[in-house]
């Protein structure tokens, strides 16, 4: 019964356009989209480079990037915290408990995902295309651009996978963002807080939004991904 009431209230909050709620949703999107944007700017070129070049330590680096996909968020949060806290090496920048700090943590978490998925996808296309590249004497830069262009579906999938991870992330942004109301409070940290203090309707409303966003992201991944698999 209580649950039903909470659900009803949650819908009420969403439909009434509760401003506190939408501040949180908006900040979530802003932080995560920004972080994923930076992660893509880093991850796409790094993945493309790893896919098209061989150098000493290449295999180890690929293994490392793959391993970094599984970085525990709280550990990343802790590391970033130590870097930017007052006594840390970047303490003077005064970043602790700001959205910027959250973005930094998210970029660290998401970049390996985008890099690794990009590398794997482009390496596969590169293998198919290699005879043509050799035949035409395609230069390395052009080769990378060709792969990025022809692999855009996989790159989009990598981007969305990164976004999914960022949206769901709670540990790291909690540590470096501090979950400050109106400033660094995002959906996941807010759900954690509201649940712990029994405000289920707010938690449910945010949880519902988060769920719908996550489902949408994954739906796009599936639809776009299938388009690519059709070719066989």
């Amino acid at each position: 019964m209580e649950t039903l009431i909470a659900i009803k209230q949650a819908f009420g909050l969403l439909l009434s356009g509760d401003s506190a709620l939408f501040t949180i949703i908006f900040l979530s999107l802003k932080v995560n989209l920004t972080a994923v944007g930076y992660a893509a700017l880093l991850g796409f070129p790094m993945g493309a480079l790893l896919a098209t070049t061989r150098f000493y330590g290449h295999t180890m680096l690929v293994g490392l990037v793959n391993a970094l996909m599984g970085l525990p968020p709280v550990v990343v949060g802790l590391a970033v915290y130590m870097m930017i806290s007052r006594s840390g090496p970047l303490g003077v920048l005064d970043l602790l408990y700001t959205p910027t700090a959250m973005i930094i943590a998210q970029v660290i978490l998401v970049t390996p995902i985008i890099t690794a998925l990009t590398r794997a996808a482009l390496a596969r296309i590169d293998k198919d295309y290699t005879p043509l590249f050799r035949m035409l004497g395609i230069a390395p830069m052009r080769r990378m651009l060709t792969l990025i262009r022809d692999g855009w579906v996989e790159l989009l999938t990598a981007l969305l996978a990164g976004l999914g991870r960022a949206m769901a992330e709670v540990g790291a942004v909690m540590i470096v963002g501090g979950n400050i109301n109106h400033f660094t409070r995002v959906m996941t940290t807010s759900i954690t807080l509201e649940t712990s203090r029994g405000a289920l309707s707010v938690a449910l409303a945010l949880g519902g939004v988060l769920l719908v966003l996550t489902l949408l992201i994954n739906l796009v991944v599936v639809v776009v991904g299938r388009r690519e698999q059709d070719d066989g």
Partner: protein
Amino acid sequence: MAEARLILEGRGLCLHRQSRAIVDRVDIRIDAGGISGLVGANGAGKTSLVSLLAGLIAPDSGVRRITGAGCVEGAGEARIGLMMQKPVIMRRSVYGNCDYVLKALGVEKAVRRARIADGLALVRLDQRARDDARLLSAGEQQRLALAQMLIAEPAVLLCDEATSSLDPPSRRLIEKIVADKAATGLPVLWVTHNLAQLKRFGGRGGGRVFFMHQGRLAPPQDIEAFFTAPASKEARAFLAYERI
């Protein structure tokens, strides 16, 4: 095409894989026009040799040289057209697959458009220009590969089992187009393990037959001589299988 007479030559080509010589001290020279044949059993090393000649892989020893008129530094690689048994099909439209090649060669847009239209019409894919190339059938994809190579105006065309896995109509169309090109002076090296096809198709325009066995290449023979009096014991054995 005839004005750009180019010599493709391999000297002492060796390729080792797992301490085995896949291509073993091969000397080969493709200069005359016509359709030369490169025959041999599966695993003889034909694809490896052709890959060396096309510059897809580097030999462990020996040299590959492209010399002659019309050989432009840098763009030289593209002067050698290669049709593989399984062509590279880019994730683009049929037109886009052709356009990529010409763009890479620095051909300007208006010329690209005209050449691609001609090339696709030649292989009867002009109605499919806008389609995703990956949706084409195997025969159509191989025709696309042929168009892709021809619009680049190669000085030599290497065809590695280009029709071996295709149905008869596609095979016939590709054979006809290649034969027509050869008749205009384009030197063709036609790789096959199919003697019937070699007989029907090879040797035209003065082309000769190279026989390959376990990485070694026998000296070339005229096509009649190859079938009536093969120079090597292995070639005789290879021909004998077909007569049974």
